[in-house]
């Protein structure tokens, strides 16, 4: 019988991705306890440069950016058949030229249709069922019930409580403007610095910044629609779900995809003999 031994000295995927430094013993599959992924200066400079460029552009072109956002929202509102009566100038931040806010009728609590009140009851019942049946969702569901109940009570008791659509647009743009300023830095920390491919990281940042901008317009129009048809009842839970939480969620969603890909290509596929513990 002949025993053949084949020695494979080709570099491991992890070694090249990590600049040839994977802790100890580059030649074989590195155990996870000693794996590292050093941060190169090139990566830092490229990432920071992109974040600075996006931030500076967002500040310089803040007004046109918000105007573009309003136009995108207007197109979406048209597609959705929302009866927007027009766009009124709003002051988003002191010192900035005004942007446009949507003019849309928002009914007071006593003016909302019975359908909206029924939807409120159904929402609370639905959330109660979720809280009862899915323990992991219980706290979120309970929190949303509290928000709905608080909103219903506040609307019913304080009849004077109103939120004009223009004011809503103003608050929304203020919030999102801050998000757009913060986003490149958060993306930098999640997608560029810690991941193996610099180019892909930079593309992620650019893509997600644009995505965040459009996603904001979509959410704003959706909330305007809810405001128009149901008044302010659903605003607190919707603001909770579709406000900055949504911004975080879409970042996390794409982050998990990028981690999924990086994990697969960094250390290669392990053989059974490499996995003993």
């Amino acid at each position: 019988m002949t025993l053949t031994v084949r020695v494979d000295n080709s570099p491991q995927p992890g070694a090249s991705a990590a600049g040839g430094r994977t802790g100890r013993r580059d030649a074989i599959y590195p155990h996870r306890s000693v794996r590292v992924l050093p941060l190169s200066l090139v990566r830092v400079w490229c990432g920071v440069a992109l974040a600075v460029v996006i931030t500076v552009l967002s500040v310089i072109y803040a007004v046109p950016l918000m105007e573009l956002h309003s136009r995108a929202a207007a197109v979406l509102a048209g597609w959705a058949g929302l009866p927007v009566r027009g766009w009124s100038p709003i002051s988003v931040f002191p010192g900035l030229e005004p942007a446009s806010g949507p003019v849309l009728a928002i009914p007071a609590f006593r003016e909302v249709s019975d359908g909206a009140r029924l939807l409120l009851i159904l929402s609370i019942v639905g959330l109660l069922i979720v809280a009862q049946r899915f323990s992991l969702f219980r706290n979120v569901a309970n929190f949303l019930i509290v928000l709905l109940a608080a909103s219903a009570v506040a609307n019913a008791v304080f009849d004077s409580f109103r939120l004009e659509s223009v004011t809503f647009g103003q608050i929304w743009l203020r919030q999102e403007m801050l998000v757009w300023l913060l986003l490149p830095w958060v993306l930098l920390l999640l997608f560029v610095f810690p991941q193996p491919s610099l180019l892909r990281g930079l593309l992620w940042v650019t893509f997600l910044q644009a995505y965040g901008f459009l996603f904001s317009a979509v959410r704003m129009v959706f909330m305007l629609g809810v405001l128009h048809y149901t008044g302010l009842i659903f605003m607190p839970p919707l603001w909770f779900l579709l406000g900055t939480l949504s911004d975080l969620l879409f970042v996390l969603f794409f982050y998990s995809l990028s981690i999924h890909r990086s994990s697969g290509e960094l250390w290669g596929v392990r053989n059974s003999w490499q996995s003993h513990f």
Partner: protein
Amino acid sequence: MAVTLLTAVSYAVIAFAVAFLLLYALRHYVLGYSRLRIDRPRDSMELAGFYMPRVTVLIPMHNEERVAGDILQALVDSDYDWEKLEVIPINDRSTDRTREIVNDFAKRYPFIQPLHRAGGQAGKPAALVDACTHATGEILVLFDADYVPGRAVIKMLVAPFADPEVGASMGRVVPHNIGESLLSGLLSLERSAGYQGVQQSRFNLGFTAQFGGTVGAVRAAALESVGGWNPESLTEDTDLTFALLLNGWKTAYVNRAECYEEVPQSWAVRRRQLSRWVTGHTECLHNYWPDLMRSKFLTKWEKLDALFLLAMYWTAPTLVAGWAASLLLFFIPEAHQTPWLPAALAFLGYQLFANQATFLEIGVASMLDGTRVRSLLLPLNLLNFFANTGAICNALRKFYWNRFWGSGGDGWYKTHRTRGAPGNGFFNGSKDSSLTTRSATGLYHARAHGD
């Protein structure tokens, strides 16, 4: 006037919440990046097998018939010199077949010396106090009964004790029931971040690793020097970590010493586990923070790190207070006129919901571990986060209520085990043994199933 006051108070609460949570976010980023770029993770693997003092393995057990056989078999298969090994399964008033299983092993292997407790205080800390009076080892190694140590884990855990300043060592906990439920999958990501990320990073930065009470070892002399286990504590491990720290002992982290555990598969079990950790941890915060601040052994960074660790459960009520303040402001129309409201809302939202930094840690650990499929669960960790927030707030409420009114808190209780039925354990071909197989050479091999 009242509205103005309410508005001012709400802004103050939000400002505090943002500042407090920002500090924690900063800590997460520092630890995450620090772990990623460690040029050579601190470990003692070169010494594993060369430094082999006499060791006593302590395994507290209470009704562990489902798992007792597995851990004892794993220890029998350990490559540690039997002449220097003593295993004490502590049968703490079990009413099932635990006694029988333990005695069966003891008959076959002389280094297994069971301790059957019939009375005294219940719970793991009290059982450990009893067992220590029987232990003869220079180093005490601890495992919970549901853990399955690999062959070399004892050698690895003992290696750091070659340094006479090391008082304790801690290994890495890896869940094996990751595919049993959504919660166990999410918790496995959390564990990964906690050990592969935070523990290794803190150890490398020169901070004390946290002794976890299982997959850990403690020098008998060090334990004696700090007065032994605290039988009153719900988290005797955290208590010991800080007692050792204050007395000048180091706790080493051994990332390579991996041991498999069963994480909770249902939220009810998880909530109780979390509640015990929160209570014990916060108790340690109140017991140790004045001494920590006064300690002459510790640098200001070590003090800061220790405070961060002890106060970490305070982030949950802080966040909830911030949410409540935001909700109040939403219903105050006057507050809508100032641009600071959305700023506050945005920052709080960013802070929390959360702390993308914690997700960075999970991502870093997943990448280093080569976790592919489970990394897709990352966004769902928000659910875990919300669930944890509620459970932590509730546990803290109970803790302070009991502290204020002097009533007794929750007692120690054992985390529910879900591994197979008796005789259907880890190595016996049950569906739960899907993670490993034992080869003819005695090595445990991970099965090729991606994550």
